[in-house]
């Protein structure tokens, strides 16, 4: 149909069609916890990929090793996670070729924020937590919102059970609102791994989008150690 040179579409329904609305987004669940120490950083994510009551797979790794000392945990809309991480990896390779060195954790953190804000009006629907060692070898954690707000922290929970896990970390790692004499106690690497594992066991009890198994990456100056702990699968 053509009206004053403007294309108009007729309003008709084809018989026999199933009318469904299309949404470009979908929540695929998953949770991330990251804890940084003086010379290590631990990042953990569950391995369940689901939408609604359907579990697609029980062994989807959501931790992306970007370099020898940086790991990105990404959950939310899985198709956006795939697109985002592919772009980050490509941009890191470009950096490596132009500057002849691997991107530092801080640089990756800044780039990730820019890449996400670049899609401010059609965001990547993802919850990101970036863990790594900084230039001094200290553990750092960066957390993001879907449009690229970036915040540096020492511990952070994100994803579908983020709101469930963060208060536990505030208590166990941050020692918030406690009568302490002097400094906040330091948390050892083994204690950090144990707490991260326990938070996931707890989250799997209450969050249906978290479960099956938890993949833990322990980053130290010697490299990245990968561990897996089984969670409840119902």
């Amino acid at each position, binding site marked *: 149909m053509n009206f004053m040179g*403007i*294309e*108009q*579409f007729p309003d008709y329904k*084809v*018989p*026999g*069609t*199933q*009318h*469904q*609305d*299309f949404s*470009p*987004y*979908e929540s*695929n669940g998953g949770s991330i916890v990251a804890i940084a120490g003086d010379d290590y950083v631990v990042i953990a994510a569950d391995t369940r*990929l689901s939408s609604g009551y*359907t579990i*697609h*797979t029980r*062994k*989807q790794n959501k931790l992306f090793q970007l370099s020898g000392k940086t790991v990105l945990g990404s959950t939310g*809309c*899985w*198709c956006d996670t*795939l*697109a985002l991480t592919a772009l980050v990896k490509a941009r890191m390779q470009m950096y490596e070729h132009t500057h002849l060195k691997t991107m530092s954790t801080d640089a990756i953190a800044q780039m990730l924020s820019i890449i996400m804000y670049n899609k401010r009006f*059609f965001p990547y629907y993802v919850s990101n937590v970036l863990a790594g060692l900084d230039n001094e070898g200290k553990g750092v954690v960066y957390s993001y919102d879907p449009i690229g707000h970036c915040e540096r922290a020492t511990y952070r929970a994100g994803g579908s059970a983020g709101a469930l896990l963060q208060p536990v970390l505030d208590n166990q790692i941050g020692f918030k609102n406690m009568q302490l004499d002097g400094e906040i106690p330091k948390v050892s690497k083994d204690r950090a791994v144990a707490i991260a594992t326990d938070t996931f066991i707890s989250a799997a009890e209450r969050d249906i989008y978290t479960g099956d198994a938890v993949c833990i990456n322990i980053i130290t100056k010697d490299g990245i150690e990968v561990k897996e702990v089984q969670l409840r699968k119902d």
Partner: protein
Amino acid sequence: MYAGHQVIPQQFWSNGPAPGQFYNFTGGYNGLATGSANQCKEYTTPGLFGTQHSSSPITTGTSVVGIKFDGGVMIAADNLVSYGSLARYQDVQRVFKVNNKTIMGAGGDFADFQSLKRSIDQKIVEDLCHGDDLEMKPKSLYNWLTRVFYNRRSRFNPLWLEMVVGGLDNGEPFLGHVDLRGRAYEDDVVATGFGKHLALPLVREQLVEGKKLTQEQASDVLRKCMEVLYYRDCRSMPKYSVVVCTKDGSVVQGPFNVNENWQLATMVKGY
């Protein structure tokens, strides 16, 4: 203007929408603003009143089920393409051999699939013309599909499909699933649509951790899946085809018929 000088004011706010005007995002169709008739108009380029995209599938295929077994992969789907609730086309292949190491199956809008298949077929012909025995690996096809679907969903013009891709990638069995948003994952068993609810549990029951199914076991459990799907999925039919990929190549088998038995039906009461 001022003593004969042409005053060019610095633009305070450039590249943004003028106050009270609509902003046309770059790459879009600017219509009357530019008035150029030769403007490149992609079919996804919005017009003055936006663009209408297909927002629902029309001719559809139902479930596809894929299983990895020791030394290969097989994918099954029935031979029906429906038009709403009408069983419209009853002798259509929905599983395919792409090449000797790649196979696939499609569910969802069949027209979208046919248009996609033209591109894939073209790539196969290219591979053959090179004559260097290099073929597309399943992971490449899987990854390519991921990007195509994600691109189309980002333009709000999705290819309404759920695809299962399988094959041998460097001798290792590969099985993956991609949907209309570009959401992709790999697993030992994948299914689409109703198969996700009915077939997945049946196959997972047979899978023991750390132990692979034999080709015969896989084919038996697929037969059972197609039977259950036929009984409970109203958009399915008893005739199905299977495509198998092993180191000896890919081959489409069938059509087979499920062992339907409706003797119990007379005893079902209460509806």
